[in-house]
């Protein structure tokens, strides 16, 4: 079996402690906010100047200027605040965000992250706030499918795509496993039921190690 996107999000959510300041990358990671246990108070940050971001407004309501980094309508919770872009990045680059959850094209065994550019030169490059977030968040979690759509590994000995940041990823959550980046490379902490170590290694270009958590 493979985890669904929502199951992956729920697994990430388990590791977000009560009281955390969290920035969720665009795409897959935004699902995490939907599945965090309701007894945890999490303050969500958005790079465009929001702390205390709440869920999407009800259809047909909402402030058209109040959007998240993915340009979707959001709301503000009591206790939330607005600030300007430069201050938003003080928070991101300055080590004030406890946890960021990012998507990835590739993650290397030393924690290098590639999540902004591929080798497709027909697309104009676009980086957004990914580099600031990757170098600045206290804990960088990656949430991604274990392999590309056509089955190629995303966890590699070294990244082949341009880096977002070097040696920043702490933990990777895929549809097959949870892996920590350690000084000795990827260490598998969990696997989906029914998957063997050999099967996981076969879908991973970097060598894997297993340790009890």
């Amino acid at each position, binding site marked *: 079996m493979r985890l669904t996107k929502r199951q992956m999000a729920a697994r990430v959510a388990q590791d977000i402690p009560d009281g955390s300041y969290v920035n969720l990358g665009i795409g897959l990671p935004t699902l995490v906010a939907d599945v965090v246990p309701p007894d945890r108070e999490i303050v969500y940050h*958005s*790079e*465009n*100047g*929001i702390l205390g971001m709440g869920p999407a407004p009800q259809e047909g309501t909402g*402030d*058209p*200027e*109040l*959007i998240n980094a993915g*340009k979707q309508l959001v709301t*503000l919770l009591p206790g939330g605040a*607005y*600030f*300007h*872009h*430069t201050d938003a*990045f003080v928070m*991101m*680059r300055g080590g004030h965000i406890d946890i960021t959850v990012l998507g990835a094209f590739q993650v290397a065994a030393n924690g*290098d992250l590639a999540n902004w*550019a591929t080798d497709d030169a*027909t*697309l*104009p*490059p*676009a*980086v*957004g*706030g*990914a*580099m*600031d977030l990757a*170098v*600045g968040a206290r804990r960088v979690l990656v949430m991604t499918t274990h392999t590309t759509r056509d089955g190629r590994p995303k966890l590699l000995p070294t990244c082949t795509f*341009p*880096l*977002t*940041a*070097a040696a920043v990823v702490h933990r990777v959550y895929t549809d097959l496993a949870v892996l920590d980046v350690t000084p000795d490379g990827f260490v598998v902490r969990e696997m989906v039921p029914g998957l063997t170590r050999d099967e996981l290694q076969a879908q991973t270009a970097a060598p894997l190690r297993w340790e009890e958590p």
Partner: protein
Amino acid sequence: MIDKRVASLAEAVAGVRDGDTVLVGGFGNSGVPVALVHAVLDLGVRDLTVVTNNAGSGETDIAALIRERRVRKIICSYPRSSGSVWFEKLWRAGEIELELVPQGTLSERMRAAGAGLGGFFTPAGADTPLAEGKEVRVIGGRRHVFEEPLPADVALIKAHLADRWGNLVYHSAARNFGPVMATAARVTVAQVSAFVELGELDPEAVVTPGIFVDRVVAA
């Protein structure tokens, strides 16, 4: 007497010239000074360097400037979106230059210009192709890249309320790049929803003090 209010959009953007560097506020569709950008379009100026987070969407404002070949170069962090058709078309044709800057570095470079600083070292991008050709220095055991100030001729921003001194408050996440852009340009122009009397804005809650603002127009 100080009165930065102007009566028309034409007056608001008067003086923008061919070759100017123009900061344009906004993040996605939030906080874009649409009326001011169209006023610049109406001016007919060319060879602009436009600094903005995204490269326009659809057929209006920044996308219209690009479509009409007014933009020689765009400095931004994320030019790609579902609607960035005109940017992508001209970029593929080699008709527009792109300087890609990490978003935090983009706002920090404008801040450095506004703050009278000569540049700064940031870890963002230091280990990436975006640091190529730039000075890289290890500080505190970590690689940092040197980034230069990004000053401009004009800033076009959107705010919520203004008084005649040019004090500004913003509306929710439309604040985004407005405050930093206001500091970085020789001339800062704000389009606002409404004017208020001097003294009506809470001095504890003014976001952009009027010293950074040259003209305000209701639009």
